[in-house]
């Protein structure tokens, strides 16, 4: 019998998180701080709108690129938040979560051999998606001394004649790092000079603390070379609804719609109606959740500092990324031992790239009560190691 499998697919490594998930699932009473989704339920008025759309029998396909009302609301939102104007009709596509937007934007832009710059540590999908699209992933290793920001120097050093796309994953999962106005200004200059394109994944844009989120699309000349990806999962606690979007230059979006129409048809109709409500009336929900996350963030950083772990202050997403290098263990050893001895699950930094070695991702998408118990256990564990 012939080998039924594609060599490309077999060659892709399964997510490092998977292995850990299997160990945690075995443990009944473990506290997990390993989740990458909000602990809040989708606000009721948004859920109710989804239910209402079902009651009304809105159970048909929408147009490929998405419901017109939703696309209009997305463009209004982006204009309100970033001051960037997009045409709902030609520059907007509604996707199955931000994940699909990552996939199809890469497929729409890459030819074999094209290089894509991926700053790590980062979300696990970019690298395999680049490979699947026939591109060549080129890793830029971000440094804790730069607060895990991408610097102009690092970018310049990674660009070659074959570089086509830079992925900008900020606010960042797993580090919580953000790029501020001055940081992005430098990057934008290089992008224009070197004539490359940007895919900016801003799924955590609503979750920044004390600092305003800035998008690279806001800079002059950048809208024309940027695909901006966002969605409803993190900001409105709508992970299970699977709804995201991408906006960008008409010629790229048109090709993305083409892939989307053949592979997906359209994003779930119920979710799209709920999302219209989220964008129209959800600002205060986002603020309530942001305030809650911010208190937990401060609480965690304080607790980690008190137990003597280094942790730079992250201003975005809902993760802290403490350094455990002083304890003389690898991330994997620490996480495995912590789970076995104190029954707390955290994710080793290495799950997000090799340069995550020596770090842990701790999520604060949990109640303060939960975090308190977990921090007590981690402190006990760290004290034991230090002895």
């Amino acid at each position, binding site marked *: 019998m012939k080998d039924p499998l594609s060599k490309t697919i077999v060659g892709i490594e399964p*997510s490092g*998180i998977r292995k*850990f*998930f299997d160990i*945690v*699932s075995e443990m009944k009473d*473990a506290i*997990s701080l*390993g*989740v*990458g*989704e909000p*602990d809040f339920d989708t606000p009721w008025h948004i859920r109710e709108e989804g239910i209402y759309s079902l009651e009304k029998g809105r159970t048909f396909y929408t147009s490929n690129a998405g419901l017109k009302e939703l696309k209009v609301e997305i463009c209004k939102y982006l204009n309100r938040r970033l001051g960037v104007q997009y045409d709902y009709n030609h520059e907007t596509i509604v996707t199955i979560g931000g994940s699909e937007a990552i996939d199809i934007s890469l497929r729409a832009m890459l030819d074999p051999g094209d290089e894509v710059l991926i700053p790590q540590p980062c*979300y*696990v*999908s970019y690298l395999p998606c680049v490979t699947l699209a026939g591109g060549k992933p080129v890793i830029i290793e971000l440094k804790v001394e730069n607060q895990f920001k991408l610097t102009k120097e690092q970018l310049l050093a990674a660009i070659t004649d074959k570089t086509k796309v830079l992925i900008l994953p900020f606010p960042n*999962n797993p580090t919580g790092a953000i790029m501020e106005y001055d940081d992005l200004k430098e990057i934008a200059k290089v992008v224009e000079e070197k004539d490359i394109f940007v895919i900016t994944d801003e799924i955590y844009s609503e979750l920044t603390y004390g600092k305003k989120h800035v998008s690279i699309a806001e800079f002059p000349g950048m809208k024309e070379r940027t695909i901006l990806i966002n969605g409803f999962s993190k900001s409105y606690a709508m992970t299970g609804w699977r709804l995201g979007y991408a906006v960008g230059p008409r010629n790229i979006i048109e090709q993305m719609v083409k892939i989307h129409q053949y592979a997906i048809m359209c994003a779930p109709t119920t979710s799209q109606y709920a999302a219209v409500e989220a964008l129209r009336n959800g600002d205060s929900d986002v603020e309530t959740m942001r*305030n809650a996350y911010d*208190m*937990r963030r*401060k*609480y965690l950083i*304080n*607790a980690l500092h008190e137990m003597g772990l280094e942790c730079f202050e992250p201003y975005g997403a809902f993760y802290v990324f403490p350094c455990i290098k002083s304890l003389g263990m690898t991330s994997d050893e620490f996480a495995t031992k912590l789970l076995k001895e104190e029954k707390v*699950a955290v*994710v080793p930094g290495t*799950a997000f790239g090799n340069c995550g070695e020596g770090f842990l991702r701790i999520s604060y998408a949990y109640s*303060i009560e939960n975090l*308190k118990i977990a921090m007590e256990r981690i402190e006990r564990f760290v004290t034991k190691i230090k002895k």
Partner: protein
Amino acid sequence: MGEKLREQILMAIDKNSKLTSKDLAAMLGSTEEEVEKTMKDLEAETIICGYPTLINWDKTESEKVTALIEVKVTPQRGQGFDKIAERIYKFDEVESVYLMSGGFDLTVMIEGKSMREVANFVSSKLAPMEAVLSTATHFVLKKYKEHGLPLVHEKSDERMLITP
């Protein structure tokens, strides 16, 4: 900082008064002393009036009956509704009293051990007051949500334990 910290403390303990001043200091990026002082001030100004616990008595052995009474009263010259409201809220049985707009004046929430106890209160204490014109008593059959917190169902964390 002062005004902001006051507001932040109130928001944080509104649904969870169990948080210690150490926790609050960490959560709000302040110091324990500062938090304690601010809370003392808030107590002194009766902005914080107490730290009660939200109990679902229906799940315990003890029998409790809650009633909502619509009361029409004659406001008194110079004192409006405040005096009569005070005369009513001083009774231990009274859980809460609100001045209302619309078809009646005061909403009075009563908690008693039995329907008879509530009925006695209304007929012998509340209704005979000179300023009270009429009462309409409604008994609560089941409580679903109080102080922004649902009382009926507990939902466990259904998220997968580890996700990217």
